[in-house]
Structures are given as C-alpha cells and as structure tokens.
C-alpha cells in the first residue's frame, strides 16, 4: 500500500481545484456543480464549501447525480441506486461534473448520458481528484485534475473520507 495523498495534501488539492474552478467561472452565474453519487459527492461537498468562501454562497447551484440506471454493465453487475437531486435547470448552463477517481471513463460516459436527460447544457467540464492515466476506455479527460497517477490494472485507488471511512487520504492498494 502506498499513500498518494495525505490528509493535509488532500485538503490542499481540494482548495486548488476549487480555486481553478473559481478562476474559470468567476461569479458562477451560469455554472452549476454536479457531484456523482455516491463517492464523488464527498469531493463535491468539499469543493462547494470552498466555493462558498470564494463567491456569494447563494449563487452556487449544486446537485447530485446517480448514474446507476445509465451504466453499460447493468446486467453483469447489479448496483444499488442512490438519490439523484438536481433541483434546478441545467439548460444552457456550464456544468461541472465532479467525481473522485477517473479510471476507464465509463462512469463519466454514463454521467453524460444521464445529464442530457435533464436538459441541454452549454458546456460540460469534468473535475476529478485522481486521474489514473493511460487506462481510459473512452475518449474522456479531466479539465480539473487533483493528481495524475500511473497505475496497473490490478491496483486499486482508495479515496477515504472522514464521514465514511473516519480518515482522510488517498491510497494505492496492490491486490
């Protein structure tokens, strides 16, 4: 096992990602944040909290998207659905999708499908904490990336959040 990000580094990366988003979307006027259920939401919660310090808190539109029913492996592996909660229109908005780990790109592929069922966004961007480089199965890349790492197939990236795992870090596990 190898630690990729310690608690302190993780906090810094979250701050950096938030500032980068803020830099590109200054007043968040036409921008909405969508966290991917279940584990992307832990990251998006933190980023939204940071963004609240950087711009007017009530200007932030924040939703959660569950992609279970849009997966391409429904019939091979059954996943339990989580709540989707997007209490605003995404029509003509800049959408920033937030997830914890970008690996094969299949989750984001499904998320794009799911998102389009809610309307036609002006632009979609992707923010991820960890990018497992060179393992993509779709032409998808992150616009805001916390840390790029090289991994092999048998390894597993574990992102731990206080509210779920009672500690905060990113680890690389060898199986």
């Amino acid at each position, binding site marked *: 096992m190898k630690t990729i990000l310690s608690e302190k580094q993780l906090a810094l990366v979250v701050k950096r990602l938030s500032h980068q988003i803020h830099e590109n979307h200054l007043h968040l006027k036409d921008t909405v944040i969508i966290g991917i259920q279940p584990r992307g939401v832990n990251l998006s919660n933190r980023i939204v909290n940071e963004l609240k310090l950087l711009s007017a808190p009530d200007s932030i539109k924040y939703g959660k998207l569950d992609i279970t*029913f*849009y*997966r391409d492996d*429904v*019939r*091979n592996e*059954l996943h*339990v*659905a989580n709540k*989707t909660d997007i209490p605003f229109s995404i029509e003509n908005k800049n959408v920033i999708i937030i997830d914890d780990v970008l690996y094969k790109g299949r989750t984001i592929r499904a998320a794009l499908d799911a998102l389009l069922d809610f309307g036609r966004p002006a632009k979609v961007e992707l923010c991820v904490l960890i990018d497992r480089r060179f393992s993509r199965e779709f032409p998808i890349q992150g616009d805001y990336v916390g840390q790029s790492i090289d991994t092999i197939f048998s390894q597993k990236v574990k992102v731990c959040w206080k509210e779920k795992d009672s500690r905060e870090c990113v680890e690389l596990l060898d199986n």
Partner: protein
Amino acid sequence: MRLSTKHLLGIKHLNKEDIQLILSTASNFKDVLQRPVKKVPSLRDVTIVNLFYENSTRTRMSFELAERRLSADTLNFTLSSSSAAKGETLLDTVNNILSMKVDMVVMRHSASGAPHFLAKHIPAAIVNAGDGINEHPTQALLDAFSMQEKFGHLEGLKVAIIGDIMHSRVALSDIYLLKKMGAEIVVAGPPTLIPKYITEALNVRVEYNVKKALQWCDVANVLRIQLERQNQPLFSSLREYSLAYGINRKLLESLGKEITIMHPGPINRGVELDSDVADGPFSIILNQVENGVAVRMAVLYLLANRDN
C-alpha cells in the same frame, strides 16, 4: 446486492431484504418518472414478453410502461388473439416465444401456480402478474410502497384487508408482504368470503364486522368482489353485500378518525366502495396506480441481472 430469487413468483418466496431492496429501488425509479425524460437506458438489451392469459388493463399497461421506461423491447400476448385459442399448450407457446430470443416473461394466468410450473421448465426470468387465486406480488409491492410513502413506515402499521379474501390473490400477497415487514393485519368481510383456516394458516385476525375493522385500522385495503371466480352464490345480492360490507362516506364519517383508503382496482362502484369514498380525500387509489409503474420497473431491473 441482489434479490435472493431468480423469478418473482410470489411474495412468499421473498425475504425482508428483497422487499426492502425492491421498495428502495422503486423510490429511485419514481424520481426518474418525475423528470422531463422519464426513461433510462438500463434494459436496452432486454426483450420482455407480456403473456396475459387473463384480462387486465392496469397491470398490463403498467408493466408495458415500466418496460418501455427501462428501454426494454416488449412483446404482447393476449389469449383471444393467439394460437393458444387453437389449443397450443402453455409450455409450447412460451418455448416458441423464447426461441425468438426473449429474455424475460411477465405472466398472468387464471390457473394458480402457472408461473411456478413455467419456472421449472424454462430458463428465462418470470414475473408473476397474477395467477388465479394465489398471488399478485407486484400489486402487494406497490400497495406496500404506497403505504410506506404515506406513513413513512410499514412496521406496526394497522392494515385492514376488506372484502373477497377467498378469491383475491392481492389479499394473499398483501398478507405475506405486510407480515414480513412487521405490519398488523385484520381481514374483514362476510364469513363465506373468508377462508376458514386463515387464522391458523397465516396468523391474521378475522373480523366479520367491517365497522370494527375500520375503527381499528390506519389503512383499509378494499378488495373487489370477484364475481367471475365465484361459481356458487356466496352472498344473497350485491345490494345486500353493499349494505353490510360496502364502504361509504357515512360509515367513514361515523368512525371519528381518518383512515386511508386503498383499492387494487377495478372498482365495483357502489358495491364494495362508494364513489364519494373512492374519489374522496382519503383515497390513495390513483397514487397506487402511479406507484405501480415505478415498482414494476424496480422488479424488472433487479431481475434482469444476467448471471443470477
């Protein structure tokens, strides 16, 4: 996470975790049905045949809508317009349909146990949409979903099931389900329409006085008098049944409390339920119909898993 069974033949074969999984998945599908695009691509590669050997409006349309909302391909079979009318056996019909690469079978049949028989002989997943006087599992699941939506819980809920218990597959499925989820049940109706050993067999309380049952309960699930299944007179007339066991506004107002009214449809208006009750403020009958689609989506979604 998956169901403990390959088919949905009856509530009898489900455990509490299965029921909870179906209800929570249904709640996610109910959210999908409120969106501008009320459709998800989950079962894009699945073909489902709706095999209806007995008439149905609600259940068939509800299943078909559920299948389409999941992006499955659907085929419809109705007895009157099929070769079964020429004498083809059930197993032959189904095997012929399955040889055309159909993955799942939704089936209603007037013979109790027909889907159980089929499950022994074919590889496809089967969903029972009502078999004779045995079970109607998706109706019980949508009843439970609607009760949970209204009250927030099933445990400890007092449910009166009123009317033709003897011939109702809804009653049996409801009893199995509500028992498993910890609700309290009273069945009420005329003695001729309540099976004699129901207390011993299913451990439910029997009440012959409808007003007493209503006074006790939080929810009254009123069942249809199934005249088509009664081959001997079990009460003297519909008018008399209505007078003694029918539910009307006056009766509800005399209770001094609010109770929720449910009915699986189709209603015999003026027999088991008066119009001012069926369409009244305490009725959740149309919510039941709405929830039916979400519940059936959940069942089909959870059973479509390839390697179970």
